[in-house]
């Protein structure tokens, strides 16, 4: 630390530039992961929020809600399994709503059909929970407030005669990037299967059954009931259209960014170390071990990286403040700590290349010439 700090103080410009590079890399990593996280939340938050372990689909649906149609009567069959604590139907459809005025801009939403009072119903932040006696009552995601919707509004569902009544607001519920309306499953069915025959002739049709069962053996459940396939909740999230592709793109960008930054940092520290070969030769001649010099370099990299990453975090949160409201930016503390540590480890590892070079420095260089 002694050498590291003295040198940082002495060569301020050089090391300021060096830490600016680390700041920029950290900033980019955090912004990108925040955006990626925001995007994937937007894409599947409503499914992620389900307090469940497994989802039961129609056999062949490949864990996609829109490809799956099963009968509500299977809920009772699923509940008969001894490992299942609770099960409830789930339906999802895309729709557009408006206040029904002329020339009004319509709003895209997702209608999710659930049974009132079941374990997957989210808590309202305003208004009332779903009520079986108010068939057309819905819980709306609070982002719809910005579009001028409020409690008590009767909204017109596009291309149908159905009117829904907003009775409560919930928070952070999106599905396929769209704000969610939670509705009674019967009301949802009236909308989604209004066309004759669209329910494939299945009585009381739903898209899937959401199951609470921590110790369930899904293969065994599939065997006991005909025509279903059971997957974990995370498989259900991955089965959302576009979810894997979106996440894959973001992850790929992050991975490349991290690999490239490892190289950039390594090269900079390597060049700085090479410049100091003569000095290190002198130190070795007067008795410094390679370990002593290594400690000086690694602690220098540590100090620079920690400062750089902390500034990067601060900049990220400042940038998040000036992002437009509808930009899907979501950076949780755990992720910041995780990526921060990852960056620190990467820059420490990349400094090891320089350390290898130190071991090779011959103290004879200090004598100015080798005969």
């Amino acid at each position, binding site marked *: 630390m*002694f*050498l590291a700090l*003295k*040198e940082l*103080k*002495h*060569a301020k410009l050089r090391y300021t530039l060096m830490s600016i590079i680390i700041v920029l890399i950290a900033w980019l990593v955090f912004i990108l992961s925040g955006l990626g996280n925001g995007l994937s939340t937007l894409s599947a938050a409503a499914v992620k929020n389900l307090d469940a372990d497994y989802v039961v689909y129609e056999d062949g649906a490949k864990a996609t809600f829109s490809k799956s149609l099963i009968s509500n009567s299977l809920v009772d069959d699923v509940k008969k399994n001894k490992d299942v604590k609770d099960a409830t139907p789930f339906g999802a459809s895309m729709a557009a709503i408006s206040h029904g005025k002329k020339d009004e801009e319509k709003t895209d939403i997702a209608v999710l059909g659930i049974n009132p009072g079941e374990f997957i119903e989210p808590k309202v932040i305003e208004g009332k929970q779903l009520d079986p006696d108010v068939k057309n009552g819905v819980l709306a995601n609070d982002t719809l407030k910005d579009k001028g919707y409020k409690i008590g509004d009767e909204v017109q569902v596009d291309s149908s005669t159905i009117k829904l009544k907003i009775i409560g607001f919930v928070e952070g519920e999106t599905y396929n990037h769209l704000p969610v309306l939670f509705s009674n499953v019967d009301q949802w069915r009236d909308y989604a299967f209004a066309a004759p025959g669209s329910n494939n002739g299945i009585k009381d049709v739903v898209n899937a059954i959401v199951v609470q069962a921590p110790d369930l053996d899904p293969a065994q459940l599939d065997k006991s009931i005909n025509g279903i396939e059971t997957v974990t909740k995370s498989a259900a999230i991955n089965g959302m259209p576009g979810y894997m592709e979106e996440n894959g793109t973001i992850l790929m960008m992050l991975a490349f960014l991290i690999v490239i930054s490892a190289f950039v940092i390594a090269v900079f520290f390597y060049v700085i170390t090479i410049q100091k070969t*003569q*000095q290190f030769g*002198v*130190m*070795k*001649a*007067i*008795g*410094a*071990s*390679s370990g*002593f010099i290594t400690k000086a370099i690694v602690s220098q990299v540590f100090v620079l990286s920690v400062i750089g990453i902390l500034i990067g975090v601060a900049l990220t949160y400042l940038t998040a403040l000036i992002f437009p409201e509808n930009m899907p930016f979501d950076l949780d503390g755990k992720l910041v700590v995780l990526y921060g540590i990852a960056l620190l480890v990467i820059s420490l590892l990349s400094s090891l290349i320089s350390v290898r070079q130190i071991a090779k420095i011959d*103290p*004879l260089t*200090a*004598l*100015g*010439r080798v*005969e």
Partner: protein
Amino acid sequence: MNGLQIKNVTKTYKEGNSSITALNHASMDVKPGEFVAIVGPSGSGKSTLLSIVGALLKPTSGTVNINDKEVTNLSSKALSKFRLQEIGFILQSSNLIPYLSVVDQLILVKKMTGKVTKEDQEKAKKLLTELGLGDKLKKYPNELSGGERQRVAIARSLMNDSNVILADEPTASLDSKRAHEVVKLIADEVKKRNKAAIMVTHDERMLAYCDKVYKMEDGTLTLQK
């Protein structure tokens, strides 16, 4: 036996199929309090000898003893510790650490051994004051003259209380007035602190300060004075 003994030290380098003898059975004794000079043209092997004595280079054959310890037997890991404790190097003028203040140059030597105590701080200041640098303690090498830099190097070589001082062309980049001052200072400190000292130089004017002068020519060491 204290001091420094060099016995029959030979160093040969392989160059292609032939081998070059840089040192040919060199022997000398340096007692504590004795200041010895080695002169000779460049390429004669005097720096090779200094490197071997300074535990920087292994000889092909022969032995070097410092305070009854045989340097040539030490492992390469033990060598850096040996250099730190037993040898004070005075290198050419450019060999101070650019980002350390004068007093920190000396503290660095103590840092290499572990913790730095209050006494070490006091000792560094005392040494520098004795060598006439009392008002330059916080200066950096680029703010010092060549002579002052070399005095810092002398103070650094004394910091670890080693018994042997090795000086490699200490006057290389100095004008003759400064060169005389620096070599006289080394001679005085060697006497005062009872060190065994070797100086490699090709500056014949400096030999007046030395007790013995050896001449090195084509790897062969001969006593001149």
